[in-house]
Structures are given as structure tokens and as C-alpha cells.
């Protein structure tokens, strides 16, 4: 009895409580990451995956993949895709959040409706946008033609630049609700009294947004941006269904490229190497996010 009481009082019992979670993390998160790293410095392909003759090749896979150009292109594509998506969906999300934060009758209903894109399975969204962006039968070209904005149909999904615009558009549509709802939550934590006293002092509209809303929303904005980066950076299904990385790698992201190497070309080690590039970039983003959160908590 005494021993247990002693154990409970000491700090050591705390380790016991975190042990299940730690074990879980080690097995289901740590092991795959480690395995992926090991795989990426070996030469595993379809030929030797079962034989077990896996030779250590060091960083050869990384060097070769960067040299052949598609990995660099995928990295750039992923960054362009992510940054463009984040900027547009953040701005639109913020505008909607500010608008719906006003108290009018339909606000709640509209806010609920705005969540719809977030609820729809990604594959369905991707197929929907694929049809909409179709050159000959897609509604987007039909509308643009009817309005006289273009003379001939645009090859949305089959020209490099427009294909990227198309997948970004689809992803922004999905991402807006996420940004909007988080920013709305942030807005509701700002006390109304601040705006009241500011308006008595003569600050209205832009001024109160600039000097009250923005500073107080800063922690939320930071979270939204970093989380948005992480979510967008690893997007796979949307692009896989809409363009499958094409035309000719124009929309090839790190995620789709890794998938292609592993499961279409059976180069498992190469696929793992690409996945690790993705992992490292996301790790940096996560560390930045953690730094922000710590800074905020200490600030309080």
C-alpha cells in the first residue's frame, strides 16, 4: 500500500499514463516513418521486394530523382499549388467570415450551407470539377462562350497552365469553408465592447478592422495559414482524379508522383524517397506551427 502511494506521489506514475499513447505513436506513426526512410535508401523494386535482397544505396535515389527533373518539378508544382490555394482561400474565407459575423436573419443558415463543400467526399468534388472543366461539354466553357468572354473553348485540363488553375480552383472551393469557420470562431472571441468604444472614439469600418480585428485575430490567422499549408501540401485524391498529374507532369504533385512511382512503376524505394521530401517539408511547417502555438500559450 505504501509503495503504491509513493509511486502515485512520485512523477514516475505520469510515465505510466502516457505509456499507451507513446506505444501507439511509436508503432503506428514512428515505425512507418522509419521504415519509409530505410526504404528510400535501398533499391527495392518489384524484382526484389519479396526476395529480401535489399541493397543499401545511400542517397542515390534522391540524387537521381532530383537530376531527372520530375521531382524538382513536382516540388515546385506542390509549392505553387499550395501557396496559390492558401492565399485565395484565406482571403475569400476571411471575407465570408467577416460578412457572416454580422447578425442578420440568414447568417446561420448561410454559414451552414457554406460548409457543404467541406462535407462532400474529395473524389466526388474532383469528378464534378473534371466534368465542369471539360473542353467540349463542360459548363465552364459553355458559360464563358455564351457570355462571349472567349471565342473558342479553353483546353482547361489538357494545357499545362490552365490545368494547374483548374485544380487550384477546385481545391480553393473545398478549402474556403475550413478557413471561414476557423476565422468565424476567432471573430466571436473578440468582445463587442471593443468595437463599441472604438466607434465612440470615432473609429469605424477599415480602422476598426485594422486596429482591432486583425491584431486580435492574429493567433487564429497563424493557425489557419499553417494548418491550411499542411492540408493543402499533401492533397492527393483531388489531383489524382482530376488530372492524374498530367498533362505531362504539369500538375504532378509530390503526393501523386510518389504514388505513381510506387504503384504504377513499382519503384518502391523511389516512391519512398519522394514521400520523404514531402515529409521533410511538412515537418518544417509543423515545427513552425508548434512554435506559434507555444508562443501564444506563453503569451497568455
Amino acid at each position, binding site marked *: 500500500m505504501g509503495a503504491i502511494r509513493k509511486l502515485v506521489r512520485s512523477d514516475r506514475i505520469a510515465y505510466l499514463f502516457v505509456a499507451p499513447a507513446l506505444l501507439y505513436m511509436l508503432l503506428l506513426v514512428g515505425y512507418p516513418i522509419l521504415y519509409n526512410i530505410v526504404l528510400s535508401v535501398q533499391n527495392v523494386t518489384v524484382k526484389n*521486394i*519479396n526476395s529480401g535482397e535489399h541493397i543499401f544505396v545511400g542517397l542515390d535515389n534522391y540524387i537521381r530523382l532530383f537530376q531527372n527533373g520530375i521531382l524538382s518539378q513536382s516540388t515546385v508544382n506542390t509549392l505553387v499549388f499550395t501557396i496559390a490555394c492558401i492565399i485565395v482561400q484565406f482571403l475569400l474565407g476571411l471575407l465570408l467570415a467577416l460578412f457572416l459575423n454580422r447578425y442578420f436573419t440568414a447568417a446561420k443558415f448561410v454559414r451552414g450551407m457554406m460548409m457543404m463543400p467541406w462535407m462532400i467526399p474529395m473524389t466526388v468534388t474532383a469528378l464534378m470539377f473534371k466534368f465542369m472543366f471539360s473542353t*467540349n461539354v463542360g459548363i465552364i466553357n459553355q458559360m464563358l462562350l455564351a457570355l462571349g468572354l472567349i471565342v473558342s473553348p479553353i483546353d482547361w485540363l489538357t494545357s499545362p497552365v490552365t490545368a494547374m488553375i483548374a485544380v487550384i480552383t477546385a481545391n480553393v472551393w473545398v478549402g474556403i469553408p475550413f478557413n471561414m469557420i476557423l476565422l468565424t470562431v476567432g471573430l466571436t472571441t473578440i468582445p463587442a465592447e471593443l468595437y463599441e468604444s472604438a466607434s465612440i472614439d470615432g473609429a469605424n469600418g477599415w480602422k476598426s478592422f485594422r486596429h482591432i480585428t486583425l491584431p486580435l485575430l492574429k493567433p487564429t490567422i497563424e493557425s489557419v495559414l499553417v494548418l491550411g499549408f499542411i492540408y493543402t501540401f499533401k492533397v492527393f485524391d483531388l489531383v489524382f482524379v482530376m488530372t492524374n498529374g498530367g*498533362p505531362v507532369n504539369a500538375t504532378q504533385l509530390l503526393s501523386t508522383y510518389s504514388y505513381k512511382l510506387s*504503384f504504377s512503376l513499382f519503384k518502391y524505394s523511389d516512391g519512398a524517397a519522394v514521400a520523404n521530401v514531402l515529409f521533410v517539408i511538412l515537418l518544417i511547417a509543423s515545427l513552425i506551427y508548434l512554435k506559434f502555438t507555444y508562443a501564444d500559450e506563453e503569451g497568455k
Partner: protein
Amino acid sequence: MKKLLAILMCIVMISCGLSAVAEGKTTVNLWYYWENLNHQAELDKIIQGYNSSQTQVEVVASYIPFADFKKQLSIGAAADMLPDIVILDNPDHAAYASMGIFADLTDRLAGWDGLQYYFDGPLNSCKLDGRIYGIPFGSNDLALFYNEDMLAAANVAVPTTWDELVAAAKALTTDKVYGIAMSCLQNEEGTFNYLPFQWSTGEDSYHINSEGGIKALNLYKTLSEDGSLPKEAINWTQGDVMNQFISGNLAMMVNGTWQVPTMRETVPDLHWNVTYIPKDTQYASGLGGENFAIIASGHVDEAFDFLMYVTNPDLIATYIGNFGYIASRSDVASQQFIGDDVMQLFISSMQYAQARGPQPEWPSISDALSTAFNKVITGIATPEDAAAEAQATIDGILQ
């Protein structure tokens, strides 16, 4: 309450166990990827026939979508969770055989008199280093489909050469209709449809940076620049191409044998016909089809028994036509589709049909080829540059 649950659980488990024992049959799992409902129903019929013909083995088929099939097979191989039999795309056969997951059937088939009837192309796709790792299921090939009404309206003759093809496609193209399309996907499907053109110049699959390879790429370029070949074809599967054709959006298409039953059923009033794929110097067609393979770690004996059942020539004759396939063995194929001009053209086209591979690295070679014609169609690279780049990749693989 807990006790009650426990008792219930026991009863459920025991009864499950009992039913398995009562059946006394070994379960043999089979994976296939046909999305076509007719194909699924036909396969089901064959399997039901086998299951009720004996008391030892119960074959259970599972559908895996084509896009996921290779992935499932690779994951299954790594995780040791494979079925007992697969029906797979023949160009992939060598890659998986070299992985060591397929049972070597050479000795078992040595005394089988059926083997001699099989066509070389399909049978070779089952081989690796002279050993046999499967039996062909059935074959198909490609031909040029054309809309007879559209050709008549535009007063265009059925093209037989590339020059005629380019001219015909251009003449048939209108505001609403494209002259020609074939699947130009950047994957095996696209490669399958492209290679007949490269072969037609007398070139083989592995030398795209040659006079013939560049000429074939230039054909795609011309068709695309003329506006006869929709750029969207780079996102079309062969099924998509067929749907565009039967919807009247295409005047001609390159497509395969297996589309014929569906087209006849869906658009019985459409006037269409088939001819050889127009040639440069010689006719060529792509040999497609599926093979049976037995997984080495599975129930090999039971699976082999099933294979011997389904490859019985009398049985093949009852189902292979319903799949829209040509039998892979001459004795059955010669009796097929008598009086059916469309299917006779496909059978006759078989003499020009070439196989892809067998080559364990085929997926990577196919990727290099399909990247090349995608670059040409989208205008990202000239045929010369695209060919040189693809060749560098292929040479790197083959050295």
C-alpha cells in the same frame, strides 16, 4: 448482460465454424478487374458452373478496379495477402512473374495437350526466361472503328494509309464532331493505342528515337494540330473514347474487340464498321487480353484444377464470345464469330497484332512512351525532343 453476450458470441463462432466444416470445400480466391457488368456476369456463370461440378473447391471471385489492381497486387505481395488466382493484363504478367509471386506451371503443363493450340503472342506473355507462369484467358486487338453515315455524308473513303487517315480525319471534323480519337492517357492504356502506329513503320517497341518512332509521334502531332484529334483524349480511357464515338462526337476511333458487344447493345441503330488501323509501311495492331496466373503461395493444386476446367476448349467456346474476346487458342478461335464481319476483321487483324513485352520493366518503358506522345499532343515538346528524352529513359532501363 455480459454473460449473454459471451454466449451469443460463442454460438455465432461455433455455427460459423460448423458451416465451413459442413461444406468441406477449400476456398480459392480469384481477383479480376473487369468493370463491364456483362463480363462480371459471364465470369460468375463460369465459376458457378465449376463450383457445382465438384465438391472439393469453392472459387470466390473479387472485383478490384483496374486502377487499383496493380497496387493491390503489390501491397498483397509485400503483406503476404494474395488471392490464389488472378486474371491480369498480359503486359504486366512478366513483371509479377519476376517478382516471384506466380507459380511456375511449366512442369504441370508439360503433359497437357492443350498448350500446342495456343497462339504465340498470348502464350509468350505468360513466359519469363522460358518458363510458363500462366495460361492466356483470351485475346483482343485494336482496329479502326468508323461511323458509316458520317463518312458517307462527307464523301470520305475508308482510310487505309496514314495520309488518307490524316485527310479523312480533317474532312470529317466539324464544329461538333472530331475526326478521330484514341485513348492517349499517360499510362498503359495510352501506350497500347499508340504502339500500333510505331510498329506500323517497322519499328519495335524499344526504339522510339528512330525514323519510325518520330514519324509516329509526328502523326499524333499532325492530327492534333489539325484539330482532328481532341486534346482531351489525353484524359480519355478507351471506354471514354467509345462513349464519345457512340454519342456521335467522333467520326472514327481506334478501339478494341471488347467494345463490340456493348456498342451493339447500346446503340443498335448506329451505322458503324471496322477496318485495319491505317498503315505506314505495314499493318499493325496491339495484342491485348488477360492471362490466368496462380499465386505461388496460395492453394496451387486447387487453383490449377480450376484452370484446367476453364481452359477446356468446349467450355471456352461457350463463354469467350460473350466477353467480346477472341480465344487465345486456334482450335476455338477458328470456329468463332462465323458470319460476323466485324469480329472477323478483328480475328484477321490478329495476324498483325504484336504483344508488349514480355519485359519485367515494361511499366517504366510504357511510361516513357506515353509521356512522349503526351508531350507531343499538348505541344510541350517537338516529336524529336520527346523521342530523344523517352529513348534516354528506355536505354537507361534496358542497359
